[in-house]
């Protein structure tokens, strides 16, 4: 545990150091890091911005449990970058403003459209950030012996320093440092586990290899083991193909529509840098995302092999002595890491048949025994260094990695929340004459307020039921309400104000009601038979997105075409270097050079 404290304290010191160095001097610095971030650097920052506590800690374990069903996250959370690079990022960069509501409000010449976009952006970001902050609280309370709320206050303090001082500039460079921490913590244990199980040091190749010393492939062996214990086969899922399709699509289009991801592409100098940067971002993301399914599969196989049917050793007693005594009797003791992690309650054993042996069984176990062992999803990653028998300093790095993932995502979201208040609401809607200097002051104030808001939402996250539904709400709403208006705003000149507002509301309201009903409301326990077309709440965003595009097009065609000025603007942003100011769209704020 000493190494954990060492890594957490030293990485936090680095983040603060960067914050002091990268202070923002203008709103241009504060919102978009002065448009001066190198595409590779921005790619790295985007990767950290993107990969949340859930990607780092929970995803591998989730895939391990879901098997093929976990693919929706792998494809869904990476495929969106293709959409960003090809359809959105370069054009929004050429448009040359600060925020997503900037684009919506200016392209659709309407403060109403701007306000609807602000509501979407705020709801999506607050849902997302509360999850990050509660992740920080859990990390502190579980691993550093600090109270949950105190943990959140410490996290708030750190983010406060670099987000309020440095704005996007401070956030960008701390995210780069956070990426380095998290990718190191993730891949080093993965390499050693891959070596241990398959003999191949590259996890992505180990994933395809045979089990070390045996003539059976790792995946085949995992599948066989699972079936023999009564679990489902690893390479299948119980979801319908249509539902898998919809969830994957909702996650992809949602990724492309998430404001905290989009604004990262405003920080590079040119449109060509924006698309290149999306490529680099995906390279850095893929480093973790292609390793995750391997880590998940290795750890599930390894956990079953080392824990199942072993004799339980209780924590708090001398493990070595007990294990030796059991071995002398000729039985296998439960592994040391299990005993150690039992204290954090991430793993548990309930001896249902009173035989002292730990049975891991699925619902269709051939021997009819009940499952007695519970393993939290996060264990696949958190315990990976111990399972691979790596030195203590690597073990300690995992918590710092998880915190880096949570804080970097929280900071990106904070920038969306604070700019929505200071820029979109104050400067662009209610106090249009505001000077740059006072806007910067309001921006810092808004960032400070957003940190507090996020912290308190983290503290009360247990009571705010919607926080746990980040995936459904954030991605569904981003896909259904934000993605269509941005896409049509670039690729269809005829799209007008009325169409945009109708499209956003069509995306927002039904998606919200559907997810609320089936996740938190009366339909919480309803099965797939009651779902609309058999689509789960996680996938509904895609279905509503299609409807919202159709509504947007029909309403636009039924109403007046947008002013000539706006149509010229759309032609401008399609061709790099051609952006000129246009009266209606740019009267509130000039585009960046």
């Amino acid at each position, binding site marked *: 545990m000493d190494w954990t404290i060492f890594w957490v304290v030293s990485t936090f010191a680095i983040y603060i150091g960067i914050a002091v160095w990268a202070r923002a001097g203008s709103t241009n610095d504060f919102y978009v890091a002065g448009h001066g971030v190198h595409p590779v650097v921005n790619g790295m920052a985007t990767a950290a911005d993107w990969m949340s506590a859930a990607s780092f800690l929970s995803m591998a374990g989730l*895939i391990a449990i879901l098997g*093929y069903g*976990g*693919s929706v996250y*792998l*494809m869904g959370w*990476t*495929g969106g*970058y*293709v*959409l960003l*690079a*090809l*359809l959105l990022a*370069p054009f929004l960069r050429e448009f040359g403003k600060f925020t997503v509501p900037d684009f919506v409000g200016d392209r659709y010449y309407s403060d109403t459209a701007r306000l609807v976009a602000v509501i979407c952006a705020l709801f999506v970001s607050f849902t997302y950030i509360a999850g990050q902050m509660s992740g920080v609280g859990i990390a502190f309370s579980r691993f550093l012996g600090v109270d949950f709320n105190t943990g959140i206050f410490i996290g708030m303090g750190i983010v406060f320093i670099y987000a309020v001082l440095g704005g996007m500039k401070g956030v960008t460079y701390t995210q780069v440092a956070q990426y380095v921490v998290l990718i190191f913590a993730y891949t080093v244990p993965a390499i050693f586990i891959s070596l241990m199980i398959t003999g191949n040091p590259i996890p*992505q*190749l180990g*994933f*395809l*290899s*045979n089990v070390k010393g045996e003539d059976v*492939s*790792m*995946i*085949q062996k995992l599948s066989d083991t699972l079936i023999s214990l009564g679990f489902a086969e690893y*390479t299948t899922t119980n979801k319908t*193909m249509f539902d*898998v*399709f919809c969830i*994957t*699509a909702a996650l*992809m289009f949602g990724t492309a529509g998430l404001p905290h991801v989009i604004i990262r592409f405003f920080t590079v100098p*040119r*449109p*060509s840098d924006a*698309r*290149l940067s*999306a*490529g680099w971002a*995906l*390279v850095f993301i*893929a480093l973790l*995302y*292609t390793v995750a*399914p391997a880590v998940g599969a290795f750890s599930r196989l390894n956990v079953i092999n080392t824990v199942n049917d072993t004799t339980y050793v209780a924590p708090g007693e001398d493990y070595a002595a007990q294990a030796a005594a059991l071995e002398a009797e000729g039985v296998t003791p439960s592994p040391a890491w299990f005993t150690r992690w039992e204290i954090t309650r991430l793993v548990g054993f309930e001896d249902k048949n009173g035989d002292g042996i730990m049975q891991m069984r699925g619902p269709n176990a051939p021997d009819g025994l009940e499952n007695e062992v519970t393993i939290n999803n996060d264990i696949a990653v958190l315990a990976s260094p111990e399972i691979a028998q790596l030195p203590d300093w690597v073990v300690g790095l995992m918590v710092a990695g998880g915190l880096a993932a949570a804080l970097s995502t929280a900071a990106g979201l904070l920038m969306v929340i604070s700019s929505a208040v200071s820029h979109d609401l104050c400067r662009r809607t209610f106090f249009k004459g505001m000077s740059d200097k006072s806007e910067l002051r309001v921006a810092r104030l808004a960032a400070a307020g957003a940190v507090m808001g996020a912290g308190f939402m983290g503290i009360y996250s247990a009571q705010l039921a919607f926080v746990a539904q980040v995936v459904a709400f954030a991605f569904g709403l981003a896909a259904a309400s934000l993605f269509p208006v941005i896409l049509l705003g670039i690729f269809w000149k005829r799209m007008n104000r009325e169409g945009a507002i109708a499209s956003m509301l069509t995306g927002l309201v039904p998606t919200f009601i559907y997810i609320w009903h089936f996740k938190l409301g009366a339909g919480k326990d309803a099965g797939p038979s009651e779902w609309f077309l058999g689509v789960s709440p996680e996938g509904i965003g895609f279905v509503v997105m299609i409807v919202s595009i159709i509504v947007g097009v029909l309403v636009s065609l039924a109403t007046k075409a947008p002013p000539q000025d706006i149509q010229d603007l759309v*032609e401008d942003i*399609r*061709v*790099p*270097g*051609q952006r000129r100011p246009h009266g209606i769209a740019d009267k509130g704020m000039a585009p960046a050079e």
Partner: protein
Amino acid sequence: MSENQSETTIREEGPAIDGKAYWKEVIRLTLALLAIWFLVSFGAGILFREFLDGVKLGGAPLGFWFAQNGSIYAFVALIFCYCIAMNRIERKYRIEG
């Protein structure tokens, strides 16, 4: 120097850059790449998975591998292909991106 000057005039006159032809080419490229994007993920990883699973890549069923690893590699390749192709198109139309 003279090249610089001619570019400035192009920018001021606007229509001298054939924006329409440029955009047509961009759209064609985008649609082609999106078709591949669809095929490697929704196609290989979901719609045709069971069929592809009959083939093995190393120890993994091919459709399963596309869903968990292959599609991601393809996504990365697609974006860099797009960057290279776009740079070429921009050079052709003398646009500075």
